[in-house]
């Protein structure tokens, strides 16, 4: 179905952290190896190929663009459309159709992945006696930044699996640094709602939680996740990897393409598909 199509996964990337783009690349590798698309590429805001360059490396008749971002916000609504010169969900340019899909963080399957990650982090710990905290960035710059994390907390809370399910943020209240005051259960599981294990999940949040004393330079050598559980502030604390490192994420990214086609069934690419449709 996508044999004439190209796929771009768009990540943030980093000029200082070599791990930042890794999950986006690994998901692209996984999808490329499925052989569904003519070609699969990544593009980044802070790494190469840039959003300005990436279209040159693709030759498909149409190009699906899936932001590997947790939330709808500044990057998905402003930066990516501006840099790729998109005019909407469907952009026609030089004989090609650019199809701008929703960010992976909007996929309903995220909820299940968060639950699974929480259970992997604290195996055998009774969830009915555990507080689950979903920690996200949060920012005053964009109201949408925290919205996805709040939505996921509501969904998981509604399942009634955990004693309580809470939001916490790095840069807006409720602050993750106060995790022990926010959570009331003896066991606390913290899952970072981020795309990659970068500065925030490896360095910043461990310091805010109190499991590390200061930011470490060698981010990729940190083994904060292997020291679970932490006995801290009178609680048993379990800290997990960022949710975006979950291999199942590739399926969600792929599913954003299918969802796009369901919502935009007439976003034609080549003359062939249009002719086929007109003959119906």
């Amino acid at each position, binding site marked *: 179905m996508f*044999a*004439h199509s190209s796929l771009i996964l768009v990540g943030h990337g*980093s*000029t*200082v*952290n*070599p791990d930042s783009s890794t999950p986006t*690349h690994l998901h692209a*590798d996984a999808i490329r190896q499925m052989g569904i698309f*003519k*070609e699969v*590429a990544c593009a980044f*805001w*802070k*790494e*190469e*190929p*840039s959003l*300005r*360059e*990436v279209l*040159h*490396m*693709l*030759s498909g008749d149409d190009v699906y663009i899936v932001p590997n971002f947790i939330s709808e916000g*500044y990057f998905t609504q*402003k*930066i990516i459309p*501006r840099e790729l010169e998109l005019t909407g969900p469907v952009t026609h340019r*030089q004989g090609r159709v650019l199809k701008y899909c929703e960010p992976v963080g909007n996929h309903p399957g995220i909820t299940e992945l968060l639950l699974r990650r929480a259970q992997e982090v604290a195996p055998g710990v009774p969830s009915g006696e555990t507080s689950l905290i979903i920690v996200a960035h949060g920012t005053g*710059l964009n109201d949408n930044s925290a919205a996805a994390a709040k939505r996921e907390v509501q969904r998981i809370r509604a399942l009634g699996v955990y004693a309580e399910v809470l939001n916490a943020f790095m840069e807006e209240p409720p602050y993750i640094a106060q995790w022990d005051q926010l959570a009331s259960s003896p066991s606390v599981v913290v899952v970072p709602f981020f795309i990659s294990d970068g500065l925030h999940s490896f360095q910043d949040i461990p310091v805010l939680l109190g499991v590390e004393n200061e930011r470490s330079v060698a981010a990729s050598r940190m083994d904060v996740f292997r020291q679970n559980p932490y006995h801290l502030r009178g609680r048993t604390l379990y800290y997990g990897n960022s949710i975006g490192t979950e291999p199942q994420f590739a399926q969600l990214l792929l599913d954003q393409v299918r969802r796009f086609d369901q919502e935009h069934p007439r976003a034609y690419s080549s003359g062939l598909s249009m002719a086929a449709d007109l003959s119906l």
Partner: protein
Amino acid sequence: MKDSILEALSTWLAAGRNRFGELIIKGTELCHYHDRDREDLELFTKPEAARLIATLDDADQYRPLKSAPNLRHGWKLVLKDLQEVKLALDFFYPAMLGTLLAWEQQRLAATNFRDTVARQSGMYAVTKHISNAQADELIGEFCRHDTKCLKRILWQIDTERPITTLAHQKFLPPAGPHGLGLLEPEEIPLICCEACNLLVAAARRVVKVSGE
């Protein structure tokens, strides 16, 4: 299925062009140009290994700019076919093959520095206040061919102002099917059609410092 970039790569290689950035391409084998006669190289066989090789320099420091002249030494990548070579080359120097083909086919549009900074927002919006003289000086240092970046620049400061602070190796002959013939016979050039985000971030620092 037709892959015009793969066909172009095949044509360039057949014409004897086998230097791509700091790489040398020998059939379906890649290594650092300086390592071309070494026999003690660590062997890799998957195109994805190119991404790992390109991530850290010889001192294990992160390479945020893939076209910086600090590619790691000591490895050899032996691949299965030209399709895998293309994928690996796109990990070493992302999008550069397709950009070159677009240039050869005279469909590559460059964006001048003023236009790049004019569209910035958020923390980079201040970059539009950089003066022409500051921009010329910054680019002359930040994009130096010998120590900073191997790409050849297609853009100017604005339509009236070329960059005056870089050596001639930083620029390209006129685009077109004969353009490549004016370069070194082995070179597959890396092309910069717009200021990168690293340069925009550097422009921000210039504006911030001059404003203090």
